[in-house]
């Protein structure tokens, strides 16, 4: 039924008419095409051994994104250009990225290497900066167990500019040539994949299949398939709905559509408050941020999603759509219980509206995890405090990782009101957190740590405003600032 999936691989148009709708690109590459350069290291988007690059039409240009092939479904290639490690050599000669890797001794066992090459390739084609900090961020989604990363970072600094910059126009033309005009609808052994192209089409599809899995970036849904081995009968992708990919400035707030990926929301959220920018830098690795969406992080209702506590503290509103109807609700009200959200059958998250943080408000976001980069938080905090003459007038404080859902600390908020925003002033209020939360022990942290650290984070928020105390993350070696 309908048209095939159509995309570019090595510049050639590929068409796939019949495919398991949740077949991963990694599986398709390795076992159908026997293009085995792309490796499976974890099948959950955490190690980057499967990194491939997508080229996507962006106006008249092409946007390059490193993504995890292990959690990318084949239909998500529709209308895009796919590059794998095998795509890079020209006339038998290594690509400059590959050459820099060899010359810097950046491979040992070699298994993670194709993934690093592709992350660096995307970085180079995007024209991104190659200072160490930027490279570390770009590579945080690629794990190497052999090298210790130094030689790979050196390769990133040595790889030079994109030698194929001249081909961009031709690539853009080729991409234009395969842009779909009609929606993708695949049927495979009774299972269905729909990719509507307008909000109305999407709304209708969700009404028609109220129990369908709604797919955005797939950085969570992908794992249902690769880790939980679930068979998804109907998948509705919102990736091709252009209207949902927009970020709208509403003046006092911004509206982030359901299709907006982390990487695209990062700059505007960083503008709302730098604290948001740092949170997003540490959210997943770049390949995850290149696929995953802010609204997806909310919609799935995870108690440890990084975005909700910060967004709740900021006073965000969620927009849900059912058919032609929309309703708005305070974000904190969306999370009902573990695994249960205020989303009805036939309804989907259309957008989140994030108010700008008034300049006179204290706004802090904290994320605690075992590893600084690309880790799931043990504890996430969003803290927004209004002061009047140094006294707390009102506080909006939300935590993730402390309960079965992201949740406001209402007792603490009340206890803080009227107290001086000083170390001594707030200390007596912190006990209220014991009323707000009864966290659990799990592999990320103990209940005791969570509760203690949550209290200390309030203290840290005070210290950062009153004493300008830096974060440990920002420290360099002694004598270097």
């Amino acid at each position: 039924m309908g048209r095939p999936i159509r995309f570019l691989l090595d510049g050639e148009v590929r068409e796939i008419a019949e495919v398991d709708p949740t077949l991963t690109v990694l599986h398709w590459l390795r076992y159908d095409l026997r293009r085995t350069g792309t490796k499976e290291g974890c099948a959950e988007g955490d190690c980057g051994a499967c990194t491939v690059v997508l080229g996507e039409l962006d106006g008249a240009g092409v946007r390059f994104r490193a993504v995890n092939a292990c959690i990318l479904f084949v239909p998500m290639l529709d209308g895009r250009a796919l590059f794998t490690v095998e795509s890079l050599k020209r006339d038998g000669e290594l690509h400059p990225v590959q050459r820099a890797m060899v010359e810097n001794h950046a491979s040992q066992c070699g298994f993670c290497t194709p993934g690093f090459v592709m992350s660096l390739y995307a970085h180079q084609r995007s024209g991104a900066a190659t200072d160490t900090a930027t490279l570390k961020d770009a590579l945080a989604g690629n794990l190497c167990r052999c090298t210790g990363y130094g030689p790979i970072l050196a390769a990133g600094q040595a790889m030079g500019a994109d030698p194929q910059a001249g081909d961009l126009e031709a690539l853009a033309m080729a991409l234009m040539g395969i842009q779909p005009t009609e929606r993708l609808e695949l049927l495979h052994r009774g299972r269905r994949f729909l990719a509507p192209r307008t909000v109305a089409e999407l709304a209708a599809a969700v009404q028609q299949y109220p129990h369908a899995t709604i797919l955005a970036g797939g950085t969570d849904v992908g794992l249902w398939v690769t880790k939980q081995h679930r068979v998804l009968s109907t998948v509705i992708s919102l990736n091709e709905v252009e209207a949902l990919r927009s970020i709208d400035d509403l003046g006092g707030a911004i509206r982030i559509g359901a299709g907006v990926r982390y990487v695209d929301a990062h700059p505007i959220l960083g503008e709302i408050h730098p604290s948001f920018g740092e949170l997003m830098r540490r959210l997943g690795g770049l390949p995850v941020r290149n696929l995953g969406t802010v609204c997806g992080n909310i919609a799935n209702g995870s108690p440890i999603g990084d975005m909700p506590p910060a967004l709740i503290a900021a006073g965000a509103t969620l927009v849900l759509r059912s058919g032609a109807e929309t309703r708005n609700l305070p974000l904190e009200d969306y999370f009902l219980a573990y695994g249960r959200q205020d989303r009805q059958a036939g309804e989907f998250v259309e957008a989140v509206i994030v108010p700008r943080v008034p300049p006179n408000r204290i706004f802090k976001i904290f994320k605690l995890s075992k590893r600084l980069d690309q880790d799931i938080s043990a504890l996430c905090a969003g803290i927004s405090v209004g002061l009047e003459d140094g006294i707390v007038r009102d506080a909006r404080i939300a935590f993730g990782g402390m309960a079965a859902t992201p949740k406001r600390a209402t007792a603490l908020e009340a206890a803080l009101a009227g107290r001086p925003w000083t170390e001594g002033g707030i200390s007596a209020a912190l006990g209220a957190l014991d009323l707000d939360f009864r966290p659990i022990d799990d592999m990320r942290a103990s209940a005791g740590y969570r509760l203690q650290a949550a209290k200390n984070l309030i203290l840290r928020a005070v210290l950062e405003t009153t004493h300008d105390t830096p974060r440990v993350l920002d420290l360099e070696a002694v004598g270097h600032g």
Partner: protein
Amino acid sequence: MADAGAAPDLSPVLHAPLAHDSAKKHVAGEALYIDDLPEPAGLLHIHVGQSARAHARIIRLDLSAVRAAPGVVCVLTSADVPGRNDISPIAGDDPMFPEGVVRYVGQPLFAVAAETQPKARAAAALAVIEYEDMPALLTIEAALAANSILEDRQTMRLGDARAEIAAAQHNLSGRLAIGGQDHFYLEGQVALVIPGEDGDLHVWSSTQNPTETQHLIARCLGLRDHAVVVEVRRMGGGFGGKETQSVHYAAIAALAATRTGRPAKCRLDRDDDMVMTGKRHAFVTDWQVGFDHAGRLAGAAFELASRCGHSADLSIAINDRAMFHSDNAYALQTAEIISHRTRTNTVSDTAFRGFGGPQGMMGIERAMDAMAWSLGKDPMDVRLANLYGVSGDLTPYGQTVTDSVSYELMTELERSCDYRARRLAIQAWNADNAHLKRGLALTPVKFGISFTANHLNQAGALVHVYTDGSIHLNHGGTEMGQGLNVKVAAVVADVFKVPLAAVKISATRTDKVPNTSATAASSGSDLNGMAAFNAARAIKARLTDYAAREFGCAPEDVTFSPSGVTAGDTALSFTELVRRAYFARISLSANGFYRTPEIHYDRARHQGRPFYYYAYGAACSEVAIDTLTGENKVTRVDILHDVGRSLNPAVDAGQIEGGFIQGMGWLTTEELVFDAEGRLRTHAPSNYKIPTAGDRPDAFTVRLWDRGENAVETIHRSKAVGEPPLMLAISVFSALTDAVASVAEHQILPRLDAPATPERILAAVMDVRTRKALGVAGHV
């Protein structure tokens, strides 16, 4: 090659920073790992059904639905094993499939071979298993209380340490818990088996130990060793995790291939791999030291206890190595080292880079910090005062340390990294910062080189010279990324003075070089480099004799150089000499053999010379912690390491940096969490956190010691480098302890266990503050 008309490549190959032999293939995705090989027609895919319980009797194992599931070709249980149902390397206690009783969560219980991997997995889920739970011992403490041990406790003694400690001017003691570590090789366990005629099997396995894989498959299947060929081109990482643990999955695939007559592949996905395969051993170490006012040891006592899992695997040797390294680089004067090896209902822990050495060293390094702080001294000074070569040379196991360069390394590094000035700067910084604290530590590593099981210290190699001058090299070592092949190839190329490209490195195969040892114990280039050297020299000697005869000169007047061979007045290319030698019916193939000389060990008394030599290094790490959250960061690392005369400085530097970062992960972010039912909760990179690029400090220097030269006759006086650098990361742990101790001006010894996660650091900070507030005397 050299004869193709191009100018000959005259660049030296030995001691040169040559790229990894597979580097160009790695970066192009052209290096083939086992799952990348073309799949043979009729290939079966295996999924392994696992125990859900830590310790239970199997009341019912009904696999009828599994057998009936779509795509299933065969289902394997212990009843299908035709030979001995055991895949253990030594002790005979590790069944391929258990009979009646399961002993850990994740233990392979049965296997399904099906037309596709998803079908095999889906079928396995249909198994009906009823368990009757039995008491499960999950921790060291529980196992010790139940006296569940692999063997009697072991004791190593030097003098009367207890008496010396008691009589010393000062004594201190403490306890340190040290977590395990998952290997997290990027390529999981995988094997492919193709059956041949006569029941023969060709096995491609991602293993560090092809010979043992061959022998154990033969034993399980009731075959002779000669019926099984095991081949390894490369592994996507090993780190010890494929020394024994790879055998299980190769054996299951071999059994499936034998039962069905079809090729079979067994590849574990990441979660299964992490749940089913053994890890670095967790330890609990009690330490006690006696010392004088100057911080010089009078004696040290250690009581080590480790969690070994449900079977012995290599745990005996691993715990022995922990004992051997309880002194690290220090002359303890007198010592008592007691070791308990507990048997638990957890996965069988195994070799991991350092092989018990890292855990062994942790106790004495904690003691060094404690001694220094109790005396108000800089830990650097106490370390220097106790080094071998400074305060003594006799180890607790009776070997005399004659090659120590620890003092030279540490003092050179102290100067080059500006240790003293930074110590002062950090003290000042800490005085100004109430909530953030910095720490600094410079620690040594001394690591004994040789397998402690003496018979393993042997190696073989096979070299063929073809008539076009190209050379085929095979040796018993396996390539897991450590650059062994390029090192050995350089050794061979140097013998003939030919370019590296003339030497073809080939897959390790049990039918080319038999009865090899695992590529482990950092021994790869020491053993195989020497064996290949011997093989190449044998051929060279024949060529030399032939040339002397042919061209009428003395053998001494035959010389090989990069520009060719001269024999008296005659000059010819290497290829021409080889061609002529062929027509003169000279054998151009040789095998080489090497065994490490001079080593011996009496395990009953724990005395002897187990190590041919020691590798040395030192590292200085600087860290910062947040005392409100326990968050931490390594801000600077400086390393000076002795690799002897490096065979390949680029490869060696890579081993040092990579080993350090891996050790840093072990001691900081990598936490294995088992729940109360014995299930591993951290079985994927989403919740088991190895270091990322961001964890590597920008200020990171690695230097090879330019005066390095092995005191004993190793291959070109180089030193082993695979494992020792991992333990340089103890400097990070010590620096973190230093930062925690600074919250009470080093008056109270922190109770910081490993890994030092934010949670443990925060707890240690709060504990130090509490004890300080209570006025509790600190250094006990």
